[in-house]
């Protein structure tokens, strides 16, 4: 394989019941250089396309016909179960952690849970899809913030500094130390120190791999 050969574009299947939005997404992703292999208007279609096209990424709305509850989520879980290599990005209109934890299960690699309105920021949105396709976890900052800001009594979280809380939130969003360092304008070394201190304070084991860390931190925050 030659290094000069451009990597094949990510193949994406989109599932969204609102036609305008579905077409908007197709255009957005196509413009961003992704290959939209197919689009679906409901969960059944999505399952069919995912099976037939074997896409790298499935991007699906949680709520779809016919029951308008969690068809998209259930379909995504099914696809993950059939083909764990498929990255899944779920679009939610609600800030509900229940869905998030159901989706994450015990392996958050290649999973994204983002609020639907994130599509407005084209750059960040496509970046999120690419990160998920690369096996990272992407958790919407709004959802994480809900967990972090939640009032607590007698919790070690109260002993954390603002800086540490910001690091913690980014960890929960699925960021690597490298990414946290660049986002908070800190040296990777400082980030590592913060992370170590914090995990000790919260009584969490320093986990091997970012995805383990995401699960541990989110579970702790939800606790």
């Amino acid at each position, binding site marked *: 394989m030659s290094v000069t050969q451009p990597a094949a574009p990510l193949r994406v299947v989109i599932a969204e019941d*609102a036609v*305008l*939005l579905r077409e*908007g*997404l197709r*255009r*957005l992703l196509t*413009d961003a250089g992704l290959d939209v292999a197919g689009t679906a208007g409901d969960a059944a279609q999505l399952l069919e396309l995912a099976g037939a096209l074997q896409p790298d990424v499935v991007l699906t709305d949680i*709520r779809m016909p016919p029951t*308008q*509850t*969690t068809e998209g989520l259930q379909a995504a879980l099914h696809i993950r179960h059939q083909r764990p290599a498929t990255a899944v990005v779920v679009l939610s*209109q*609600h*800030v*509900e*952690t*229940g*869905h998030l934890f159901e989706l994450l299960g015990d392996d958050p690699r290649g999973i994204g849970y983002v609020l*639907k*309105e994130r*599509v*407005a*920021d*084209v*750059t960040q*949105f496509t970046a999120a899809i690419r990160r998920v396709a690369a096996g990272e976890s992407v958790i919407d900052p709004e959802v994480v913030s*809900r*967990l972090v800001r*939640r*009032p*607590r*009594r007698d919790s070690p979280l109260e002993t954390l500094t603002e800086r540490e809380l910001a690091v913690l939130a980014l960890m929960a969003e699925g960021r690597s130390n490298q990414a946290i360092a660049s986002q908070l304008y800190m040296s990777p070394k400082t980030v590592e120190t913060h992370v170590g201190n914090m995990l000790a304070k919260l009584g969490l084991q320093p986990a091997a791999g970012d995805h383990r860390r995401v699960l541990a931190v989110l579970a702790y925050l*939800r606790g």
Partner: protein
Amino acid sequence: MSRRLRNILIAGAAAAAVFTVVTYYLNGWPQPPGPAIYVITPTLVLLAYLGVGLAAWQRYPAERIGLLFTMAGYAWFLPSLTQLHYPLPFTVGIVSGALYQAVLAHLALAWPYGRLRSRVDRVAVTVNYSFNVGNNVVQMLFWNPRTNGCGTACPANLLLAHSSSRLYSTTGTVFSVTGVCITAAIAALIAWHWRSARGYARQAMTSLIWVAIPIAAYIAVLGIPGNLGIPGLVLYGIGPLILIAAPAAYAISMFRARTARRAVGAALVDLEPGPSPARLRDALARALGDPTLQLAFRIPERGGYQDTSDQIVDPARLPAGRMLTELDAAGNAVLVYHELMQHEPELVKVTVTAASLALEHARLQAEVEAQLEQVRASRTRIVEAGDAERRRLERDLHDGAQQRLVTLSLAIGMARSQAAANPELAVLLETAAAEAQAAITELRELARGIHPAVLTETGLAGAIQALAERSPVATTITAVPASRYPAQIEATAYFVVSEALANVAKHAAASSTRVTIRELTGRLVVQVSDDGPGGARPEGGSGLRGLADRVAAAGGALRIESPPGSGTHLEADIPCP
């Protein structure tokens, strides 16, 4: 009985008593009379019959029983006229010597209401009167006081036709035998009356039997020659007291009739509210002492009535001796009782009133309960309809406005990525994006307030978790069942927790709350406790009142304990099939 007649009868009674006493002491004056007992007991008998007779006459003017007692009293007095030592009163006194016995027999046959029941009874009574007076008249024709034991002490016998001791004693023997026959016939009739009596009447007849036996025995002893060797002091001094048994028994029955009316009232008071018809009938039957009492209701399908023991009652063909009274204007319920009860019109009235009151009460109660049930059902339907409407609104917002705003944001976002060359346009688009984002956030909160989608999607577990995460007060969830429940139950439980947490945040100044939802058999128990200062008043905030209404609409109950200084503890008990 007119006031005047009553006064005359009372005066007559007093005069008779005075006469008896005075003549007893004047007779043979200046010789001392015999023992006082000879005058005391006859006077007591006189007063007892006249007293009870007049009282009964006054109380039951439509009945003849009072008249009969009064007659018996005067008949008892008539023989005392012999004390006057003048031929006319002496003769009258002798002739009427056994008249009181005839009146007593009449009284017994007419017991307890003073009316003879049949032609046979009337014949027996007439024969008995004729005999009791007639035998004396016949014997008087032959009885000469001067030669037959009375000597000069007695006045002349006005009826004397032919002085003959032989004829006198022969007729006496014949009349004794005849008298025994007539008395036996009357006793048989009374026994027949007793046997055929039922219920209320049986009770009255039984008390008569207890009274009639000693009286009849006493009179029989008086009629036997030699009186079985019983000394005169016992026979004439103490013996007449036995006769008082009859007026005494009647006085007791009058008193009992009065207490029976009270008993009817008491029986109703003792009944639980809304008694079953069978229990009502039993209580009335007990109070009246009439086990034959029937309470019957119209059965439209059968076109007749059916009583509480499922017996068919046909108003057109009641068995002999039964009476029927309708308990309501529509004739849907009737009381069937022994005809003798009509002699106690007041008792019938009280019973009918009591029964209709109880039935009306039961009917009203059933009506109110039915209405309440309707109101409850409609309240539940209204709440359910409200919930359904909120779910629909939330879905409309989600699928409509929210979706469009997201699409709009996306369009703005794509426009921005192409407007890098035009800074002014970029700024405008950035503002537009921020506005769209704000609108999306607001709309999301609005939709969540209308109805939380997470409740429909994941049930109580997810929805309560979301509430806890959102609550501005630290909230611990102790337990929430993972199972799903009917939408209204989930919505009610959710509403309780959400409203309680909102109240805690607003008023309680608490630092933490605890939410517990447990499923017990047939119900869901929702508890929300805080560690605030307590003192919350359920009637205070409209929030808590709305909560109580909401829980009640689901058929549950809300309890709030908020002692000052010990936090507020709220518990909702929601029925859950």
